[in-house]
């Protein structure tokens, strides 16, 4: 029996097993395969991307680091040329837009079920063994070292396991790298992909055939909540959705899809999606805990990357790029460890060092206080002020026979009446404190 076990262990042994075939897992696996290592990628979906959801855009520069020719080869929808920041009031809106036709596009919209699948196929071409429709149920730990994974059918052994198993990462929890995720640390995101003619998309968003426009939506039905909405343009469809912090949903007893329906019927948004057909509804969690909620990132025989590691920069709407680069850094660390045949915590600590030197931990650290302030002040910063900005423009654009000076004073008085001097002062100091924490 023991001999049989040892034999099985040998047969099912590879250098590295990567759990999860999203951007982090694929980037890690392909980095290892390119260095000639034996790597198996285990994906629970029918194919890579089939369980994955995001807003809409991947970033060009970090994607090129993994797939230098992706702009020519990968299934891409549109290159984004415009960001619109829409402050929605109850029935009005103020929109700021930045538009530039970059020679080198910054981001592209993609359909995950197509794009992730393409990435996985590329990884396969480079030698990664991909096992699909397989769920890793637990990690195999021997002498406090991770030595393999247990799937529904079989045990697989390896020198290093890389966890890229997504925001819920049950495996990181199993081995104590993280505790329970709290409701304030994730946003529940719901999204619809709405089919619309290419020409209609171009006309409504004032873009050409291959160009895209991104809307970031504040307020509206989410006024006062820690939640934001988004619109992305795909080639022949529009992705519209939102993310609201889970504790807001719990406390307010609201259903995320009801808020989405209200966003869709807001007078500023409704004309953009009019006559479109919903072709897919989806939902996902966004890890939003930030720097303070990053789990332990490595242990003997194991590293954690991507969403499983809370690697999301929520202010800049970055996630897939942090996933790809953290996956790559985990891959590079594994190559060093394999070279030394040393898979101890000590050697894998190199992963943390690489992360600290990269934009990933630097950016997360820069915004370490952001979520505290936003949880504290969401009613004000995402409720009161968006409303006030809209009411300013309502006043400024009104023509009603009332002398302008009277209008201005009425508006100024309303600020102090609605908010009070001490509240305004507290808002001001928390903004200054936040800015200082970001810049110092």
């Amino acid at each position, binding site marked *: 029996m023991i001999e049989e076990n040892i034999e099985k262990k040998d047969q099912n042994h590879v250098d590295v097993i990567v759990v999860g075939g999203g951007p982090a897992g694929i980037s890690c696996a392909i980095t290892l395969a390119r260095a000639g290592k034996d790597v198996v990628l285990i994906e*629970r*979906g*029918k194919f890579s*991307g*089939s*369980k*994955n*959801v*995001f807003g809409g855009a991947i970033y060009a520069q970090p994607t090129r680091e993994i797939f230098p020719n992706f702009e020519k080869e990968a299934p891409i929808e549109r290159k984004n040329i415009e960001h619109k920041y829409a402050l929605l009031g109850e029935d009005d809106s103020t929109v700021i837009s930045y538009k530039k036709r970059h020679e080198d596009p910054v981001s592209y919209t993609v*359909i*995950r*079920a197509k794009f*992730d699948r393409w990435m996985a196929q590329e990884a396969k071409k480079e030698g990664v063994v991909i096992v*699909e*429709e*397989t*769920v890793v*149920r637990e990690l195999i730990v021997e002498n406090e070292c991770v030595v393999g994974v247990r*799937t*529904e059918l079989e045990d697989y052994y390896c020198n290093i396991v890389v966890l890229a198993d997504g*925001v*819920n990462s*049950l495996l990181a929890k199993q081995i104590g790298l993280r505790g*329970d*995720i*709290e*409701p304030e640390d*994730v946003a*529940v*995101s*719901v999204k*619809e*992909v709405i089919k619309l003619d290419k020409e209609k998309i171009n006309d409504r968003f004032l873009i050409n055939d291959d160009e895209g426009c991104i809307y970031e939506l504040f307020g509206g039905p989410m006024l006062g909540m820690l939640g934001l909405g988004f619109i992305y343009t795909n080639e022949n*469809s529009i*992705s519209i959705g939102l993310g609201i912090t*889970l504790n807001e*949903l*719990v406390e307010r*007893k*609201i*259903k*995320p*899809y*009801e808020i989405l*329906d209200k966003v869709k019927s807001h007078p500023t948004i409704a004309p953009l999606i009019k006559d479109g057909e*919903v*072709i*897919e*509804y*989806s*939902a*996902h*969690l966004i890890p939003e805990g930030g720097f303070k909620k990053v789990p332990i990132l490595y242990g003997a025989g194991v590293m954690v990357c991507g969403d499983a590691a809370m690697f999301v920069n929520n202010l800049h709407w970055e996630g897939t790029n942090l996933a790809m680069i953290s996956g790559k850094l985990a891959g590079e660390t594994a190559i060093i460890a394999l070279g030394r045949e040393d898979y101890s915590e000590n050697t894998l600590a190199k992963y943390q060092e690489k992360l600290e030197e990269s934009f990933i931990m630097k950016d997360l650290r820069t915004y370490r206080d952001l979520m505290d302030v936003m949880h504290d002040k969401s009613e004000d910063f995402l409720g009161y002020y968006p409303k006030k900005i809209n009411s300013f423009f309502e006043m400024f654009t009104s023509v009603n026979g009332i002398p302008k000076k009277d209008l201005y004073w009425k508006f100024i008085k309303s600020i102090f009446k609605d908010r009070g001097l001490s509240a305004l002062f507290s808002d001001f100091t928390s903004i200054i404190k936040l800015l200082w924490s970001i810049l110092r």
Partner: protein
Amino acid sequence: MNDSKKDLENKLYTVKYNPDSESHLTPVPESCANCRSKACTFVCPAGVYEWDEENNRLIVNYEDCLECGACRIACEDKSLSWVYPKGTKGVTFKQG
């Protein structure tokens, strides 16, 4: 059926599922009976959970699950047993 429920059904109609014959979501009946918030009944994007007042139990429409994990984290005393559906089962996003 109210409008909101109907609207949700229309949304879920667009999702491709391959449901398992057994649930991957297992609440603990005593915990649910004592739960005050019943948060899972409104935070779930797929409306998987319904509270059956008459029988004092949680109905779990696990076939509709989008596998996001919101219920697991919102569960008041973390008693809900939440695992991924088997490899060939559950949701398959065609867009995502």
